[in-house]
Every structure is written in C-alpha cells, then in structure tokens.
C-alpha cells in the first residue's frame, strides 16, 4: 500500500499541509511552522524510501485515466529521482529560511499555502511520466507561483506579476498546442528512453519539427532562453525565498528539466540530432549563456544581477543537452543539480543582506563581510562555484561540458564557456571585493533585533546549502552522488556499456 502509492504520497505530503495552511488564522505561527516543517520532513523521508525502493529494483509507477486515452502517469526513473531529491532537500532548507525571513511580513497563511503548492507542482513535474502529466503540473506551477511573485502587493509587484503571467501564458499555450498535436500525430505520449517518435519521425518530418520548436519555445519561456527570458528579471520583486526557489528548483528549473525530457524521452537525442533540431537548441543556448552574463554585468540591483546570472547558467543545461554525446549529457544533467544548489545559496545570501541591513544594491555592499562574515562566506562559495572554481560543484559541470564540446567536435563551444567564465568572474568578483575589503557605511543600521549576524533561521539554511554545494563538488566521484546518476543517464541515452 505504502509502496504502491508512494509517488502519490510524496505529492500529497506537500499538497495537504498547503491546503491546511490556507485555513489557518494569520496569528498561529507555531502551527503553521510545524505543518511546514513536518511536511518537508515527511517528503524527504518518503523520497529516501523511494530511492531505496528503486535501488532494490522496484518499478514504482502509477496512472489514472483522466480523459479517454489520456493518462496521468507518475514514474520514478533516473531523471525524476534527480529532480525529486534535489527539490525535496532544497525545499527543506527553504522552509526554515522562509519562516525566518517572513517573521514580520503580512499574509503569511496565503504565502505558505501557495509555497507548499509550488513544491507540489515541482514534485509532479519530476514524476511526470508523459507529456500530458508534465503539462498539467507545469501549468499548475505557473499558477501557484503567481501569488508568490506578487506577494508584496505593491504596484511594482503587480507589474512584475503581469509580465510573468503574459510570458508564461504564451509559453503555456504553445506547449499545450504542441502536446495535443504530438498526441494526435504520434498516438502516444509516454516518456521513453530514446524517445517515442524516433521511428515515426521520418513519416512527418515537417510536423514533428514544428512540434519540437513549439515545445522548446513553450518550455524556453520558463527556462529563460533568449529572447523569452524577459519575465525573469521583472519577477525579482518576489520575496527572497520565492526567488531562491524559483531559480533553483521550481520555475526556471522546470523549464530546463522539460527541455531535457523533450530531447531525451520524447524525440530521442539521436533523432533530434539527425534532423538538425539539436543545432537550433545549441545556438539558442550558447547565445543565451553569453547574453545573460553580459547583461548581469550592468545590473546594480543584486537580485537582478543574480537573475541574469540564472538566465546564463540555466542555458548551460540546455547547452549540455544540445551537445551530442554522453559527456555533454553528463555536464547538462549534473548542472541541473549544481546550479540549483549554488543559486539557492546566492539568493539566500542576497535575501539575508536585504532583510538584515536593507542592502539591495551591489554598490551599497561595501564591507558587509565584516558584519555578516558567515553569510558573505556562503556567498563567496556560491559565486566561486558559479565561476567554476574547483572544488566547488560548478567546476564539475564546466569540466564535463568542456569535454562534451571536444567530444562532439564543437570546439567553438569551449570559447563560449571561457567567455562566460570570464564574464562570471567580472560580475561576481567586484561583489566579493566590495564585501570583504570595502569599508562599511556606518549610517546603515541593522533592521533585525538579534545578537547574531542575522536571524538564526536565516543564517543556518544559508550556510547549509553553501556546505552542500561544496560537498557536491568534493565528493562528486563517490557512488550515489549526483554525478554518479548523471553518468548512468549519459550511458543509458547513448547505449554505451
């Protein structure tokens, strides 16, 4: 019973607390926090149970027929596991962080209700076993993140939310159309390693190519591919925990994850390569990598700089997918994990600076390292990771991406990687320099009443995720590390022994 419906339980473990939280009175902070933490603990344990089950060879699968011939399918393959593990761990830390961060904010029941629904949608996306199920949860994600983006309730928040809805509904409709068309044309939509349209592709090359582009563009809106990324910097009006979750595991990651699914499990990487579709993705991704980094250089607002950095970094995932060859695949898949951990660290820090001293701009960050050394240290780890400095997680990604580029004979991609690394350094190092070596402006006073550098509920999650991103790099070669799974995926997709 437990094992048969395990995937449903995992989804319910955040849906049920979410719904309960909606109906809690604003003042019952304790009940709400207990529900939140309990939910995330249950989810983490269930995900661990799932891992053990899958390791023992169990095939955990569920389906429900929603419309004639249209199934909701939940599966637990390697891709699902990677995203599920990542998001359940990061949700756990973000829950604590959010409880601390929102201590003095308004409408917290609303916030935490939707917060749990976001994680529900993310879990659904990771377990989705066919395009239809993916679409359901993907759209659900759009809807439940909207109230979080506009949570502050200001005019600016409303405008940001409007841009967000405009972009994502465009993407959603494209993706919906592509999915229906695909279903009618192929008569099937269940994800399968090697793709399920591989054989049928030659019969309708034109139609399938259009569908591919529709799906990629639909997903690219969330994955912030240029020129569909415009909403991301605007959505920065959201509270920090939301931005962190949005960038690390939820919206942006869902887009990237979807592209991974479409290339590997819908079309099949070999079919996509043979018909020149991967090339389109490669050019889009390469351009976005450089574009995002260049734009980040010019942002003074710290969160916006991080947002453009996400635009660039998430395209590494697409880049890895588009490089035909197992090493590129490993690079892309591992970056799915690494980018999540490092980006959440950076956003936690940014939120912490803003909440503790009201510092939102890079130009105001002089000397913050002396006041908040641990937070600044975490930021430094995250930033060095993004640049690809060993032994932090980001180095592993870049290493495999570079090898993938060589393997597939696309040496110009190495140029893209180097350019992006230099640009990363150019927009991160000044922050670090200011933070550690600048002089703190004495007129800025602490907004929070705490003897520590910041609230402990904000500080410890930040430090923990920084440590995780260090560990993910240091112990990458161990069995059962994210890299281990990425390697298996790489081997499976290319049929290598």
């Amino acid at each position, binding site marked *: 019973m437990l094992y048969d419906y395990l995937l449903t339980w995992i989804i319910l473990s955040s849906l049920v607390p979410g719904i309960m939280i909606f109906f809690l009175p604003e003042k019952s902070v304790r009940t709400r926090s207990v529900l939140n933490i309990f939910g995330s603990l249950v989810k983490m344990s269930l995900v661990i149970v799932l891992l053990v089950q899958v390791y023992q060879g169990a095939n955990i699968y569920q389906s429900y027929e929603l419309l004639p011939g249209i199934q909701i399918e939940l599966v637990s393959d390697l891709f699902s596991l990677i995203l599920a593990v990542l998001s359940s761990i990061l949700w756990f830390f973000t829950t604590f962080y959010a409880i601390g961060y929102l201590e003095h904010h308004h409408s917290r029941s609303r916030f935490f209700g939707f917060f749990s629904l976001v994680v529900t949608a993310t879990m659904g996306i990771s377990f989705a076993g066919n395009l239809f199920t993916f679409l359901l949860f993907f759209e659900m994600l759009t809807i439940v993140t909207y109230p979080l983006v506009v949570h502050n309730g200001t005019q600016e928040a409303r405008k940001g939310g*409007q841009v967000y809805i405009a972009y994502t509904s465009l993407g959603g409709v494209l993706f919906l159309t592509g999915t229906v068309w695909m279903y009618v044309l192929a008569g099937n939509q269940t994800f399968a390693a090697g793709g399920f349209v591989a054989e049928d592709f030659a019969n309708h090359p034109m139609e399938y190519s259009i569908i591919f582009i529709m799906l990629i563009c639909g997903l690219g809106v969330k994955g912030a591919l240029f020129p569909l990324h415009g909403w991301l910097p605007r959505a920065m009006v959201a509270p920090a925990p939301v931005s962190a979750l949005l960038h690390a595991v939820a919206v942006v990651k869902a887009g990237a994850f979807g592209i991974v699914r479409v290339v590997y499990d819908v079309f099949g990487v070999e079919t996509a390569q043979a018909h020149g579709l991967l090339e389109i993705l490669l050019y889009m991704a390469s351009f976005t990598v450089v574009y995002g980094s260049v734009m980040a250089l010019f942002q003074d607002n710290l969160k916006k700089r991080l947002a453009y950095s996400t635009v660039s970094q998430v395209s590494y995932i697409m880049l890895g997918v588009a490089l035909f060859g197992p090493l590129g695949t490993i690079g892309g898949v591992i970056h799915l994990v690494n980018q999540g951990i490092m980006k959440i660290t950076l956003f936690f820090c940014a939120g912490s600076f803003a909440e503790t001293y009201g510092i939102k701009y890079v130009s105001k960050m002089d000397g913050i390292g002396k006041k908040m050394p641990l937070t600044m240290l975490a930021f430094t780890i995250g930033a060095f990771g993004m640049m690809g400095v060993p032994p932090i997680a980001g180095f592993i990604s870049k290493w495999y991406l570079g090898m993938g580029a060589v393997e597939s004979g696309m040496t110009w991609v190495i140029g893209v990687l180097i350019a992006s690394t230099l640009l990363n350094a150019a927009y991160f190092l000044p922050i670090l320099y200011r933070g550690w070596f600048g002089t703190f402006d004495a007129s800025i006073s602490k907004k929070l009443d705490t003897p520590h550098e910041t609230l402990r509920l904000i500080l410890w999650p930040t430090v923990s995720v920084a440590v995780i991103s260090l560990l993910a790099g240091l112990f990458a070669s161990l069995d059962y590390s994210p890299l281990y799974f990425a390697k298996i995926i790489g081997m499976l997709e290319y049929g290598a022994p």
Partner: protein
Amino acid sequence: MNSAAYLILVPMLLAPLSLIPGQISKLVPSALYVGFGGFVLFQNVGQVSAPEALFMGGWDAPLGIALKMDSLAILFSAASILTWALIVLHGHVFSREEKNPNLRFFWPLSLMLIGSLQAIFFSQDIFNLYVTLELTTLCAVGLLVLQGGRTVYTAAFNYLVSAYVGSMSYLMGVGILYLEYGMLDLVLLGETAEAGKSLYVALALMIFGLAVKTALFPFHFWLPPAHANAWPPVSAMLSALVVKGSFLIIIRLLLGFYEHVSWPFLNLLGLMGGGAILYGSIHAIFHPDIKGVIAYSTVSQIGFMFLMLPLMDSVPEIALLALVLFTLAHMFAKAGLFLAAGNIIRWHAGKKIDSLKGVSNRSMASMLAVGLTVLSLAGLPISMGFAGKWTFLQAVFESGEWWGILGLLSTFLSIAYLYRIFSAMMERPAAENNKPVAPPDVTRCIAEAIPVILGILAICGGFAGTYIAFVLGGA
C-alpha cells in the same frame, strides 16, 4: 409514470409550499427536491445504455409527448440540480441580511425554474420544448426583477422582449416542421425528414430563436445588463443554468438532424461564436465592474461553446465530449464566481474592480473561490475547463480543421480579463477600504464556503472526464 416526469413535476408541486412564511418552509421543499432528484438520477445512471422513454397521457408518438432519460439529459440534469441546490442554499443565507420583501418569491420561482429546466433536458418533443422554454424564460425574468430598481426593470424588459422574439422564431420553425411532416417527436423527425428547403428554413428559424435565447453574439445585448444587475444568487442561476437549457436544445437538434445539417450552417454558428469570444472578452477586459466582467465573460464563454459546434461535423464523438465538459465546467465555475462576487461586494469591497484591493487578506475563502473558478473558466489545468479545452484541441487536430487553433485566442483573452479580478485581489489593502471585518458568523461562513465548493467541483470535474465519456458513449 417514469422518473423523468417526477423530476419535472415534483418541484412544480413543491413551489407553492415554499411561499409559506418562515425559514424552514422555504428551505424544506428545495431540500426535499434535491434529495429526491439525487435518488432518481442515481437509480437511472446505471441504465444509461437503454434510454427509457415515456409517453405522457398514454399516447404514443407522434401524438404523445416523449420524455427520454438518455445520458446527455442525465448528465445535465444531475449537474444542474447540484449547482442549483448550492445556489439556493447560498441564496437562503444571503437573504438574511436583505430587507427586500420581494425576495420571498426567490424560492418558488427557483423551484419552478429548475423544474422547467429538467423538462428541457428530458423532452424529445419540439413543441413541448417550446412550452418549457417559455416557462424557463418567465421564471428567469421573475427572478431577475426581484432585485428591483430602474436598471433591472429595463434589463428585464429587454430580456423578455428578446426571449419572446426567440421563442416566436423557434415556434415558427416548429410549425413548419409540423405542417410538413405531421409530427413533433425529435427522433422520429430526424429519421423521416428529408433535406430540402422547408427543413432548412425550419431549422434556421429554430436555431436562430435558440441562439437569441442563448445570447449568441450579435443577439447577446440583453444578457450583460441582466446578469450583472440581478441579485447575486439569481445572476449565478441565470448565467450557470438558464443559458444551458436553450444551448442543449441546439445540441439536440444538431444530433437529431445530424444527417441533414450541412457544414455552412454549422460554420456560421461557429463564426458567430468566434465573434462572441472577441466581443465579450474585449468588453470584459475593459469593464470597470466586477459583475460586469463576469457577465461579459459569459458572453465570451457561450461564444466558445458555439465555436466548438462545427467540429460536430467531422469528429462528433470527441466534439460532443468537449462540449459537455466545457458546458458543465462553465456551469459550476460561473455559478461559483458570481456567488463569490456577491459575497465580496457585500462584505469586503465595492462593486468596482479597483476596490478589490486587499480582499485576499480579508477573506481567504473568497480568494480561493475566485482562484479555483477562474482556473476552470480560463481552461487552465487541472480543471474541468481544461479537460474541455484539451478535448477541443484534440478534436481540432484530429479533424484537421485548423481554424480551431484560433480557439486558443480565447484562452489568452479569458486569462486577460479573469486576471484583472484575481490580481486586484492580491494587491495591498487600500487604506480607504473601511468595511468592517464582520465576525465570521454561521451565515457568512456558509455563504463563503459555497463558492469554494463550486470551485472545487469545477476543478475535480476534470477527473471525471473518462466517466463522462463512458456515459456519453452509452447513448
């Protein structure tokens, strides 16, 4: 007598009882009917594969009046009684703070209304349909004028006149068919009628009349003022239930005369539907009032239902499923949204969209109700409206009728106007919003819970797609 007749007659007989003064005598007849109706439908839903026909008065067709319990009728009947029950319960608690003495007619009129709607759903006889249509209109207008006031009387007059024109047109069509074939039974007519000038003229007249009654663009002008200005539970009833009656007759006519109706006819209806989507949506996007937006959204959504009709030609089964899903989703969601709007206007904000600021902070239930119903109306997953939209797109791609892609335009437009309501609620509370937060008493709790229940129905109905397809397949 068969059970369909009970479903129609019982509420008519119960209606006078609800005029007895007192809270209990108002609610008991409705409650009795809901229990009874649920029982009857539950008994019959198992037998969908063998529709049961009844010939009233012992006369066989073509002379007698046939009532038939087929799957389409059972689905619409069950959904309408459920929605109606929730609306009436809401009306019951909502009326407590009202001083308006006319409201005592709300209960008998709504009982008559649901009875005559059941007659529409179950009738197989085109003249009997005319009678029930008239009865529905009279009840609807009666409900509308309960609110009182000059705007409402003007709206009611326009409603009455347009409905009358529609009925006359329909009746003329019926007359032509009767003169030509000497029969009124829909099934028999469908079997015997031959394509020809008289059939086309008759069908055109009937469908024109029904389109006016369903408020299809450009005959929609009477709908927005009526629906936007009625007493909130009445708005819900008009928008969610009444327009579905005449629309179901159109579906029945198309199914009955399936072999004789050719594509230009259907495409014209689809084209008008497209016009309705554009016209209704654009008005909804710019309308300053909450209920005005919702009323124009009904115009647009009705347009979408008509837009699906041309697909009945090439892929009838999927198209019918899409139609049923979409129409039922609209029933639940629109009822919920109008009731939620009524609650919000009474307890939390003003009539204007701009006054909605901070409602989500004041009432979580209202926010959830609006959120859930809006999801379904915009056709976003996971909801019944989405199931309808998905099936519609599937029909479009399977039939190769590429114009159907334009239906996606309606998704954008509906997101645009529904977004206005929801996003306004999410803003910071306006300082001038001084409505005191009344202590949540039982009355208000029930009134705020009912739209949430309707919203949940509009969402969960999406999971019943396979069952509905199965029930329809048995027809």
